[in-house]
């Protein structure tokens, strides 16, 4: 029966080839992005626009900021778009990343039930709001996954002088941004969320935006992975991507995103979009 083995080999190989004809090219650019960018739908839009003006094929690798930066440290990514300032500082200080450029921003807000048992609405700062949640022992859902949102949340607990871990009212969902909101909504709980994700989910959850942290914008930056540390990094592609998202064309993609469906930009571009009809 082994005489026919070569024929079988040819069949298997051609199948593999057929399947790979749509991927596995060498012009690939691996982009590390966070769940909030994918869950809002912006990632697909940025990738589509970028691929329209270059020859690169973008392969997004999506996870929390912690996961994305860790993969970048291993040389698995070419360029990252994250929103976790302290982790990014360390990433750059360690020589793993370079050329950090701000791309866009939104705001963190405390979302919670309409009834607002902890009176978060009357708080002046988010750390005061967190203190009220802790004092009233209201349920708080944390991402608990070292994402940018989770890191910000933990630093707010730090500012408020509270250690929430281990408290019965503090629960970690370990899910993406959108899923986390649904869990919080289901439990009539408070949570910290970025304004873009909240806008997308506003009609689908029974939560209200109670307090927005306008003092500390949530800034998404693009960082190139240091090519001197890893042989495989596509440096030229990373530069092209960083240039594109910060260029007027890229900034307009961001400014326009959400206009049609929600009547406002989901993310505010940090630079100028000449054609934007609102805000710029």
């Amino acid at each position, binding site marked *: 029966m082994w005489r026919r083995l070569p024929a079988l080999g040819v069949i*298997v190989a051609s199948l*593999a080839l057929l399947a790979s004809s749509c991927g*596995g090219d060498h012009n690939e650019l691996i982009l590390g992005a966070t769940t909030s960018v994918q869950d*809002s739908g912006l990632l697909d839009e940025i990738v589509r626009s970028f691929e329209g003006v270059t020859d690169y094929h973008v392969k*997004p690798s999506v996870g929390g900021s912690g996961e994305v930066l860790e993969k970048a440290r291993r040389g698995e990514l070419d360029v990252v778009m994250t929103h976790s300032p302290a982790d990014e500082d360390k990433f750059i200080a360690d020589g793993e990343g370079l050329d950090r450029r701000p791309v866009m921003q939104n705001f963190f807000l405390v979302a919670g039930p309409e009834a607002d048992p902890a009176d978060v609405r009357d708080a002046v700062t988010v750390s005061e709001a967190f203190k009220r949640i802790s004092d009233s022992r209201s349920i708080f859902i944390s991402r608990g996954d070292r994402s940018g949102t989770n890191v910000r949340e933990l630093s707010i607990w730090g500012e408020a002088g509270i250690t929430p871990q281990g408290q019965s009212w503090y629960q970690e969902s370990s899910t993406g941004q959108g*899923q986390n909101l649904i869990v919080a909504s289901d439990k009539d709980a408070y949570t910290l969320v970025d304004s873009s994700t909240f806008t*997308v989910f506003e009609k689908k959850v029974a939560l209200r935006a109670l307090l927005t942290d306008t003092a500390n914008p949530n800034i998404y930056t693009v960082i190139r992975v240091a090519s001197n540390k890893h042989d495989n990094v596509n440096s030229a592609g990373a530069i092209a991507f960083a240039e594109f998202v910060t260029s007027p064309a890229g900034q307009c993609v961001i400014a326009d995103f959400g206009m049609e469906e929600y009547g406002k930009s989901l993310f505010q571009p940090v630079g100028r979009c000449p054609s934007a009809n609102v805000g710029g």
Partner: protein
Amino acid sequence: MDLIWDGVTEALRLIFSGNGYVYEVTFTSLLVSGSATLIALVLGLGIASFLAFRAPPGRTLALSAFNAGMALPPVAVGLLVSIMLWRTGPLGQLHLLYSRTAIVIAQAVIATPVVAALSTAALQGLNPNLRLQVLALGASRWQAALLLFREARLSLLAAGMAGFGAAISEVGATIMVGGNIKGSTRTLTSAIVLEVQQGDFETAIALSFILLAVILGIITVFTMLQQRRPPA
């Protein structure tokens, strides 16, 4: 419950309005899971023939491994295949991560033990004298194997369907090695996960029904094939 009904009507609307996105992810699912199943069939039948007919030493141990392999956690397979395909990994130079081929590999790894274990059981269930008799009548090993496959076709087709089911319904490893890229590695299952994450439950349910319909359609064809009267 309304959501389920809305999902069904949305599914029908998506199918009949010729929605390009739905056809694209369905095509991707069928292509990668079909390829993975074919690879699993070739490898699985090879392994099963070897274990059942040759009765190599350590067969029970190998069989235990394949039987346990039917419960291989997809997320662990996804992680291992990812690490192998990482740019810094042993197969990194192939640039296969986040491609359809990567998904085919992961799904083939998941489906092969299913096909191998069930096929071995099927072939072992045949009368052992049958093979000796066929060989004594002058059949080559290859002809004997084909004849025995035909004899066990009911169970072998069931093994193939189980392998296909494991492949097409898989999502954890699929997202991990494929990256859920629109237009390339987004399958029906990974599209469902994304819709859920985006809170678009209606579309998620619609895609779920489409996935179920696709599976039902294909399995029905194979079941009809299986139940057909054997050629005389």
